[in-house]
């Protein structure tokens, strides 16, 4: 249970900014900057953050859909960042992805059967007959019926399409599923259904999830541990309970205070952050959050805080919890 299935070390993605007639490189967008974490077998790691914080980029780099600029990704003892692209393609059998937009992630010209069969054909699993059987089996597993196999994606609702997307990710019996905002395009009532389905599948098929989302409630519901990202860096990483009950990083506190509480009588202290997210092409020096942080100190403007374990299992990248910097 505690064996790390995926280990990420110092992952970076810098997108070059090119300008001018000759496309001279004039800078970088630091989409992901030195992110490290691990995922244990059978657990769900949630990654939250606002738009543009690099959470999707991180997810895509884990599968090498985007090549990392720097860093090491080790999956099940195999270093994914150093293998050839052919080997990586084969390794994708073990890591699958569920996408955000169920309307865009299914080829509109293929029937559901073809969509679900494709992973099996690509990885050369089984023969025509057994593939067909498996397609029908997985349609039932995700709560659809086998007679849906002959239909096209446009004949389904958003929630049903996302179930197809999940079924497709499951076809090759992967160990790890990276879910990139799998429910943010769905209605709230459907969100719950899809989340419950994902949890049931996790138990049944012993899956490990990396769950990327911007909805804190959703992440809390499904995750064992949660990482909070801000401007390409991991700000805080802790177990779900300890992060939600006792957030340490000022950014996490602000985020959590913004979660609506379904009680009109409830008086809450809302931390309103001033300003906008700074541009990732020109991030603030030191701690990237210092421009908006209510607890800003001298050190924050110059020294980049490291992600450190301040309590067992609770990591935070903030100088407030680092006594050496404070004094």
């Amino acid at each position: 249970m505690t064996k790390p299935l995926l280990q990420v070390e110092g992952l970076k993605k810098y997108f070059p900014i090119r300008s001018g007639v000759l496309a001279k490189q004039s800078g970088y967008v630091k989409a992901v900057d030195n992110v490290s974490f691990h995922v244990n077998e059978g657990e769900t790691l949630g990654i939250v953050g606002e738009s543009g914080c690099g959470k999707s980029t991180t997810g895509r780099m884990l599968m090498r859909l985007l090549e990392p600029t720097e860093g090491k990704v080790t999956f099940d003892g195999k270093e994914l960042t150093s293998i050839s692209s052919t080997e990586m393609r084969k390794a994708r059998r073990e890591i699958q992805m569920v996408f955000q937009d169920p309307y865009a992630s299914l080829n509109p010209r293929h029937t559901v059967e073809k969509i679900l069969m494709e992973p099996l054909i690509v990885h050369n699993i089984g023969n025509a007959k057994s593939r067909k059987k498996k397609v029908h089996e997985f349609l039932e597993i995700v709560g659809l019926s086998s007679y849906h196999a002959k239909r096209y994606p446009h004949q389904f609702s958003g929630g049903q399409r996302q179930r197809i997307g999940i079924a497709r990710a499951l076809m090759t019996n992967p160990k790890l599923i990276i879910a990139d905002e799998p429910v943010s395009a769905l209605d709230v009532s459907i969100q719950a259904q899809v989340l419950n389905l994902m949890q049931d599948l996790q138990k049944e098929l012993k899956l490990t999830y990396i769950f990327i989302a911007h909805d804190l409630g959703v992440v809390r519901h499904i995750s064992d541990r949660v990482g909070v990202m801000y401007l390409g860096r991991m700000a805080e990483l802790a177990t779900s309970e300890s992060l939600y009950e006792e957030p340490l990083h000022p950014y996490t506190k602000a985020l959590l205070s913004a979660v609506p509480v379904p009680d009109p009588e409830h008086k809450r202290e809302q931390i309103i952050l001033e300003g906008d997210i700074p541009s990732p092409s020109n991030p603030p020096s030191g701690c990237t959050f210092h421009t908006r942080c209510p607890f800003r100190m001298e050190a924050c403007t110059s020294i980049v805080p490291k992600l450190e374990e301040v309590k067992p299992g609770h990591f935070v990248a903030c100088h407030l919890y680092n006594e050496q910097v404070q004094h």
Partner: protein
Amino acid sequence: MTQMVPNSTKEIVIQTDPSTGPWRDAWRSFSKNKVALVGAGIVLFFLLLAILGPYIAPQGINDQSLKDRLLPPSSQYWFGTDDFGRDIFSRIIHGARISLWVGFSSVVGSVVAGSILGIIAGYYGKWVDTIISRIFDIMLAFPSILLAIAVVSVLGPSLQNALIAIAIINIPNFGRLIRSKVLSIKEEEYITSAKAIGMKDVRILFSHILPNSMAPVIVAGTLAIASAIIEAAALGFLGLGAQAPAPEWGKMLADARVVLRNAPWTMIFPGIAIMLTVLGFNLMGDGLRDALDPRMKN
């Protein structure tokens, strides 16, 4: 008193036609478009003429009857006769075969070549794209008929070479069309998801990107057949395409020039044949555009 009926626990299954694929939808919308159907009808008519030509035509294409030179339309010669006493009606029927053959095969040629170049340019991008796109730009900088004349003068005047020339001048049109389509489709999430599954580039290109970029190509292809027919006729008219005595419509127009004042029917009927075929393909192409373009869907 009405009694409440307990909710049935059975799942409500809404039966939709299980096989409503994108092509079937397109056909449904196409078949509702009357103008397009007229166009398709005209095309079908000329297609039948081309196939059944030798069986329908009352006379052979080269049967000369010198006593019947330049006769006006009559019950014996429906469209009159030409300079050599040949039956214009029979020649037009045979000419359908030539025009449609040139139209179809040149467009198929330029679609195949254009698709391959366009896909490579669009999918791989970078310097490959730059080279291919600039070549397209250079070709598009010339008026197409001028380029065709240049190609034919290099290869020598014949129907075959006119066909090749027309195919070549249309390559950049299809190439650019496919390239732009590939550029937009490769950013779609189902392409990313295909990569995430572990699919090879070749499979992504041919099983996902190509089928999804075909709709505008079919439309442009249908319309291009019309212009290819005109171009073939123009080359024939200039003496660079089909050579005498082939009953090519453009060539017939050119031959009619000399006797136009005395026998206008020698020009009118081939002219009408060209016009009708082109009209048919254009109407059908417009109908296909409406049927295949998702933005037109309501």
